[in-house]
């Protein structure tokens, strides 16, 4: 199993990780090896098997809808990299990121 550098770059963007050129190189070769290894599962016939997402038989958990205190604004903002006391501050959502 071989992944192309281009494919890995696309996954990097999906994962919101800015990978350096060196990282892209090592990631391409390492991911190819790991994907090759996990492809061992192809050998198993699972056509009759249902997927299992959760290990134990669980039932939906219901509770009464009782209002309870939640985090205060100050608590929610306490570890924010930037905030104005009420909101998280982030760079512009729209518009291109121009090179300086």
């Amino acid at each position, binding site marked *: 199993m071989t992944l192309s550098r281009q*494919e890995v770059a696309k996954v990097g963007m999906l994962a919101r990780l800015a990978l350096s050129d060196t990282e892209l190189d090592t990631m391409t070769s390492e991911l190819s090896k790991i994907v090759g290894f996990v492809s061992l599962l192809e050998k198993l016939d699972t056509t009759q098997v249902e997927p299992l997402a959760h290990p134990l038989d669980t039932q939906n958990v219901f509770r009464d809808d009782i209002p309870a205190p939640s985090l205060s604004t100050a608590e929610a903002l306490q570890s924010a990299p930037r905030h104005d006391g009420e909101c998280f501050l982030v760079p512009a*959502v729209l518009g291109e990121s121009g090179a300086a």
Partner: protein
Amino acid sequence: MQPAELSAIDLVNAVRQGDLSAVQCTEAFLGRIEALDGAINAFLKVDREGALRTAAGIDERRKAGKPIGALAGLPVAVKDVLCTADLPTTCASKMLEHFRPPYDADTVRRLREADAVIVGKTNMDEFAMGGSNENSAFGPVKNPWDLTRAPGGSSGGSAACVAADMAPVAIGSDTGGSIRQPAGLCGITGLKPTYGRVSRRGLIAFASSLDQIGPMARSAADCALIMETIAGHDPGDSTSLAADVPRYTELLEQPLTGVRIGRVAEHYAEGLDPEVAKGVDEAFAVFKAAGATIHDVELPHAKYGVPTYYLIAPCEASSNLARYDGAHYGHRTALKNTGGFESPLVEMYCRSRAEGFGPEVKRRIMLGTYALSAGYYDAYYAKALKVRRLIRQDYLDAFKHVDLIGGPVSATPAFKLGEKTGDPLAMYLVDLYTVATNLAGVGGISFPCGFTKSGLPLGFQLQAPPLAEPLLLRATDRFQRLTDWHLRRPKKIV
């Protein structure tokens, strides 16, 4: 005997009876940390002041005749993956270096309510991803038995601090072996309870369908004591189990007569170190002498455990770790206008995450994102979920014939620091004997069953059906009444 040599149960009794003050007890362990942790690096944060203040409060209440909790005065080290409102919680990542959680994890809350004394936060592989503790952004932990070797991971700091008597008890988390494997490599006892037995609220998520918190201590009896405090339903974690919490410490006495222990041929695979194999065989002999019967059982899909795990865990991780976006908490890049991104916001996301995460975390996020992406989902993630069912079915079938499954916890004793860091796949294989427990959602315990000729601990693992923690603890306790491997300590650390 020095306080640092006493069991957790003895320490709690000594404090309750007034033979030892909570402050004396806490100081004894803080002194060990001061003397040894420079060489071991088991702690990311030691809270000397807070611990002594808590201990003094307990002593005052005791003297005044007021009630004290079930763990009053007991020093506990907590893996830095559990949120503590009064202490940093870094997950051994640059991403969370300056993060301060707004609330305590449920386990931490229960420990505090029981009057345990939290002495510090322990080192680990970044975001609990790794098997050697070398993925910590704050330097690896050294194995107290040989400082040139890895303590295992990801709960390496928790295992090492107990092995070096820097804490009588530590809390770990286990997603694919992260309690049991380091416990085995450090010669201590570590319990991974059934999925859902301990609330995951405030446990920083790695792979939510696999993560479970558990105790790490010198003995099964001490693990039983801690379980009585940390297990139980929590409305804040809807996957936590509603089943009653047994009095684990009171269920240890019953002999093992008639208990059926399975031995799995697949556990004696290529790569199993001969000294480990010998230790495991000798442990089976001890159980036999204790009245248990040994039976061959099959786990036919055992060899698919590691590849299944390394799809499911990274997929869940890539989703869970999407929350680290530089906006709400955690690291934010200082870079701007570097070009090539669709917007300044996306640039901030991508740069912050690239700077905040270490190589193994990035690798797993990439692997998970790939396996979940359009065109690959069915071939990888959905396929792994199907194999997960087969693996769980193997366990359910085996537990029709036996009460417990025994075997090695790791294929080798503690390996050298740096030995596997260049080869991610070799590192993944250290989880060979532990990942299936998490995939099946059952419980497992590991404990020392001997030593190599060169003096490194050997670990034995028992696995049990869901909620059979009382049997796991009882069997291990019986083993520890018949052997003294768990009482051995590294001779001279520094």
